[in-house]
């Protein structure tokens, strides 16, 4: 099946098994991203955002994880079906990932320079000398001077470590970059520096990017498209304007209401009542129904259809209406 999208995920279902329980982490998720485009996946802890990213790279630990069904099409080729050997040449080369925690993503007993050189030499099949040259170039691009090539991760601050991780992810000019909470461990002033750098690099190399975050502010500033993830479903997706101006799903609305606003003097916040559902025992109908203010009997009966409100703006809610 040919697809004109750069990367397209179709009906992805991922489960974990633990002590005989089945944890439904990702339940039929579909989205696509083009070159030069950034998709933001937002949602709370445990919503399944990281699992989605890891299944694209095929680095989920199997078992306990298992991709039950679905397709992950990179330029039309299904990454789930290809042999591991072929995946090796894609991983780190065409697709790479920035991990959440820079403190644990680096090898503590290897200098940061050689960690990046290793990646470059392997994927480009070149001698270490040449690869080293490229590494120094990458380090300089993220603002780390050449002298620090030989230093070890513990000699770097958190912000610098995250920049090393970014340099490593970008060293092979990936076509798709998966950034999993790339700035969560950083302070705001450093976060601003790192986000700026990611934006620059994306423009320079026309990279497609999937940015995972729980911070709606970061999404507003860096993404073109947004998917709101709740209990393993993308409950609403669309362009940034669709989500920030015309949010339709009660969960998206609740999420916006619960963040303290900078220009709002209302003292009480409007939280979403209750807790996210137990992933071993998801509600039968809409997964958000137990916390939803607008819930009706219909919501609990069965699978909720996805409605296209306006072209490209999808919402999985019975209350959503197609606009004429």
């Amino acid at each position, binding site marked *: 099946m040919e697809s004109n999208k750069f990367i397209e995920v179709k009906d992805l279902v991922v489960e974990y098994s633990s002590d005989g329980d089945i944890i439904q982490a990702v339940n039929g998720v579909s989205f696509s991203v083009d070159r030069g485009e950034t998709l933001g996946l937002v949602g*709370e*802890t445990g919503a399944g955002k990281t699992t989605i990213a890891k299944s694209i790279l095929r680095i989920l630990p199997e078992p306990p994880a298992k991709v039950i069904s679905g397709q992950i099409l990179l330029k039309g080729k299904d990454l789930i079906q290809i042999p591991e050997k072929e995946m090796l040449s894609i991983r780190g080369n065409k697709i790479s990932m920035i991990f959440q925690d820079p403190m644990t993503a680096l090898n503590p007993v290897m200098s940061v320079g050689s960690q990046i050189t290793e990646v470059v030499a392997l994927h480009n099949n070149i001698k270490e000398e040449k690869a080293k040259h490229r590494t120094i170039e990458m380090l300089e691009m993220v603002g780390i001077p050449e002298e620090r090539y030989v230093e070890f991760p513990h000699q770097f*601050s*958190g*912000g*610098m470590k995250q920049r090393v991780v970014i340099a490593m992810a970008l060293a092979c000019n990936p076509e798709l970059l998966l950034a999993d909470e790339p700035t969560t461990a950083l*302070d*705001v*002033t*450093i*976060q*601003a*520096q790192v*986000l*700026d750098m990611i934006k620059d690099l994306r423009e320079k190399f026309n990279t497609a990017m999937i940015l995972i975050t*729980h*911070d*709606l*502010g*970061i999404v*507003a*500033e860096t993404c073109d498209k947004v998917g709101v993830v709740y209990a393993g479903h993308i409950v609403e997706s669309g362009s*940034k*304007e669709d989500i*920030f*101006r015309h949010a339709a799903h009660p969960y998206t609305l*609740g*999420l*916006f*209401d*619960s*963040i*303290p*606003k*900078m220009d709002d003097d209302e*003292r*009480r*916040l*409007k*939280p*979403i*009542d209750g*807790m996210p559902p137990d992933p071993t025992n998801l509600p039968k109908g809409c997964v958000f129904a137990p916390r939803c203010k607008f819930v009706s009997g219909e919501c609990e009966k069965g699978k909720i259809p996805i409605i296209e409100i306006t072209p490209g703006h999808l919402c999985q809610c019975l209350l959503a209406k197609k606009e004429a």
Partner: protein
Amino acid sequence: MSTLLEIKNLKKYFYVPAGTNHAVDDVTMKIQKGKTMGVVGESGCGKSTLGRTIIRLLEATDGQILLNGQDITNVQGKELRKVREKMQIIFQDPYASLDPRYSMDDVISEPLKECKRYNKRYIEERVNELMDRVGIEDRLRYSYPHELDGGRRQRVGIARAIALNPEFIMCDEPVSALDVSIQAQVLNLLMDLQEENNLTYMFVTHDLSVVRHISDDISVMYLGQLVETSPAKQLFLRPLHPYTKALLSAIPSTDIDHPMNRILLRGEITSPINPAPGCRFVKRCPYATQACMEPQELKEIEKDHFVSCCRVTEIN
């Protein structure tokens, strides 16, 4: 309005092999009764150390802490226990701050048992009342921390902190480990408790939208020192210190129509070990001059708005 807590020239130094870590260096502030003082700054700026020194979890190196006018900087023994009843803390990480072998009942009743004033029946009732107040279901009374989610654990931490009706609570990043929808629930609870019991808070956080929301006054810290302190609204409308300006401009905004005009800072927060005598922000400050190498003083620029920067009038 009366002052509950007054801190004068408070210092907390740690002696490490590389030299002296000036974690809190000459901090002076007043916290009014029934109000919330927000303390913001980046990791490593000494905001948690300041809070912990104030409630006497750490010994001050120098300076004074006055609670209701009484100097509590060096009180010991029985006196200190009395002070501790009045000053409580809510910890940052609800996963690490609860003893895994203590049930919720043990956690909440411990301060009540420890003060040796109450009988069993009273404690039993008071724990009921507290759990009800912070919104923990009765069925969870004998459950252990690992059985609860982050939001509920933090509620237990709050119940423990208010058990003895303290006057002052130091909230050390109480919601930073929680998801936004749960964070809002806990912030609302803290604000309700403040109103009901006329509590005074010191709210330490790096989350600027949260601090604006909950605080009456805000102090901005940089490398152990206060650089600016002001009523909350005024600070966000008109930040005066160059660091505060950069900090506020770095908050990602959810308003897609008006993206922030960002002031990007060069470099990162420097080491608080053996700092140079001048302004500590000088290496990252776009306005730095020779005069900034001299020690800076916190001066009242507008009413209740204090700034520690010698060029403050020139640059604003």
